[in-house]
């Protein structure tokens, strides 16, 4: 192969983690005599609203999205992640991931190191946790250390984190005891429609890329229904590649706990699919997929996790925009770009994550934005077009949708709008409201059969 051609990278850590038992007989044997624990959503430490469900982490770990992580982290690993953003096996990783439990539940369970715990979900056996360590955490300290602060991380952190930050709230709402050890899924959950057709765990994604003849693939991270600005971002970013543009565009939607005002997950995935069904990007070149994860909104840290997930899925490139996975002004709006082009020494990156030992291979593609230029009479790139442009803001568009006014096709494709209205009819609301958030966390994205 020519030296100019980019090859698909190996998974982060060198191999895909796959911890899913598919033989029910074997699975039943594995949980024989084990104490059971029903997975509970993490509730906001003040309001009691669901903010996370650890089942999503178990799914993403066991299906290899978070390779090389294999389970709930031990105390030494959490400390290393917080200090250097590295696992004990040296591979870079941005966030602590733990199975947290209350003191009452721990006492009731009476488990100890060496025990196997059967985790149930919606009342059905789901996974096992082989307990290697039990330790106590201070959730508030964990929350602060996870995201950094202006004194320790002056390169990118602009303000102290607080309860207005949803990621900080997730860690602050953790229970104080951690059961550390490897997870294994022993009863494969079935993704519910419409999520089932977007479920491409890393092995399946890599196989799909092979089937499609995609050597180079650029990922588009999303938590939004696509407007035409997003579509142009995808189309144009895909011109990055090697000797030819990227063969494929992978849209990977983060599916997890929602915030009020977000579009429903169902509308997001089907909205992206409508882009290819409508032919705006050929389906042969565009694939919509999901990952289960309750976003931490850690801007540069989140981008690192996104890089890991998409490299594991087989992508060669990753688009990163301004304010990537950000909320508020806690981080510099270009913190992600700083990480991927220069590094952030205080977070353990004296160089970009692609240039440090045990780092990533996926290539960052830092894009700005597209908006309509009435002079050029087309969607124009902010760093190229010299005219005054009409900006496409998400809130402007949301206001239009809420009013029941169909956005013109230069802003939102009619096929995408139809998807928004389809789910609006189903939920009685175009965006996530309290009812949607509560129901979603009750029903989750999966169902389980009896084992």
């Amino acid at each position, binding site marked *: 192969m020519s030296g100019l051609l980019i090859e698909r990278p190996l998974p982060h850590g060198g191999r895909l983690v796959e911890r899913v038992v598919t033989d029910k007989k074997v699975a039943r044997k594995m949980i024989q005599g084990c104490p059971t624990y029903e997975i509970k959503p993490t509730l906001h430490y003040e309001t009691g609203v669901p903010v996370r469900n650890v089942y999503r982490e178990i799914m993403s770990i066991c299906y290899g999205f978070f390779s090389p992580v294999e389970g709930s982290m031990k105390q030494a690993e959490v400390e290393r992640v917080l200090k250097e953003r590295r696992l004990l096996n040296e591979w870079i990783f941005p966030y602590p991931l733990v199975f947290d439990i209350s003191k009452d539940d721990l006492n009731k369970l009476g488990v100890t190191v060496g025990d196997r715990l059967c985790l149930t979900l919606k009342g059905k056996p789901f996974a096992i946790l082989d307990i290697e360590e039990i330790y106590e955490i201070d959730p508030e300290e964990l929350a602060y250390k996870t995201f950094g602060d202006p004194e320790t991380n002056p390169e990118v952190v602009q303000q102290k984190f607080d309860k207005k930050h949803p990621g900080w709230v997730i860690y602050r709402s953790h229970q104080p005891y951690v059961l550390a050890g490897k997870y294994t899924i022993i009863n494969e959950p079935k993704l519910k429609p419409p999520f089932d057709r977007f479920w491409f765990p890393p092995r399946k994604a890599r196989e799909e890329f092979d089937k499609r003849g995609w050597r180079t693939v650029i990922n588009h991270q999303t938590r939004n229904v696509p407007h035409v600005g997003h579509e142009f971002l995808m189309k144009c970013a895909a011109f990055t590649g090697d000797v030819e543009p990227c063969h494929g565009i992978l849209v990977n939607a983060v599916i997890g706990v929602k915030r009020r005002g977000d579009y429903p997950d169902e509308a997001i995935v089907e909205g992206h699919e409508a882009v290819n069904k409508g032919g705006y990007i050929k389906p042969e070149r565009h694939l919509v997929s999901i990952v289960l994860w309750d976003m931490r909104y850690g801007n540069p840290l989140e981008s690192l996790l996104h890089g890991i997930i998409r490299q594991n899925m087989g992508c060669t490139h990753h688009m990163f925009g301004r304010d990537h996975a950000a909320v508020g002004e806690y981080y510099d709006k270009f913190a992600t770009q700083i990480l991927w082009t220069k590094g952030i020494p205080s977070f353990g990156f004296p160089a970009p994550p692609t240039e440090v030992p045990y780092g990533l291979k996926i290539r960052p593609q830092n894009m700005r934005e597209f908006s309509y230029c*009435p002079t050029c*009479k087309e969607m124009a790139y902010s760093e190229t077009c010299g005219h005054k442009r009409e900006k496409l803001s998400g809130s402007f568009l949301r206001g239009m949708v809420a009013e029941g*006014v*169909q956005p013109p096709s230069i802003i939102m494709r009619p096929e995408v709008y139809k998807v928004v*209205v389809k789910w609006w*009819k189903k939920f009685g609301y175009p965006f996530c409201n309290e009812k949607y958030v509560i129901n979603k966390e009750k029903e989750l994205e999966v169902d389980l059969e009896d084992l």
Partner: protein
Amino acid sequence: MAYFMVVLLDDSRMAKLRGTGLEDNIKYMFGGELRLLEVEVSEELKDKILAEFETARVDSRGAITDVPVAFMRELFNQVVEKKSLGPEVVEGVLAKVDEIKEMAAKESEYLPPPDIETE
């Protein structure tokens, strides 16, 4: 500063607007793809809107935004009814303020979807 509110126009609203004599006042954005009207708001009416609806705000152009959807729908109804873009339109909306507030309270639970084919 002159204040105004933007009324967005899609095909269904354009049909209702026909014959009101307001067609010449339509403004265009996004290469003529987005049609809109601007309704005049006096200083006094602007203050009333801000006092009645806590989410309402005035942006840097003088546009009043972030009012409930029920307000915006009634704003369009009043434009058609009054065949005007003058302050009497917002006056007409504010005359129904209790009804709008009641609907706004329910807005976080339910918003009527547009009547379009989705399958």
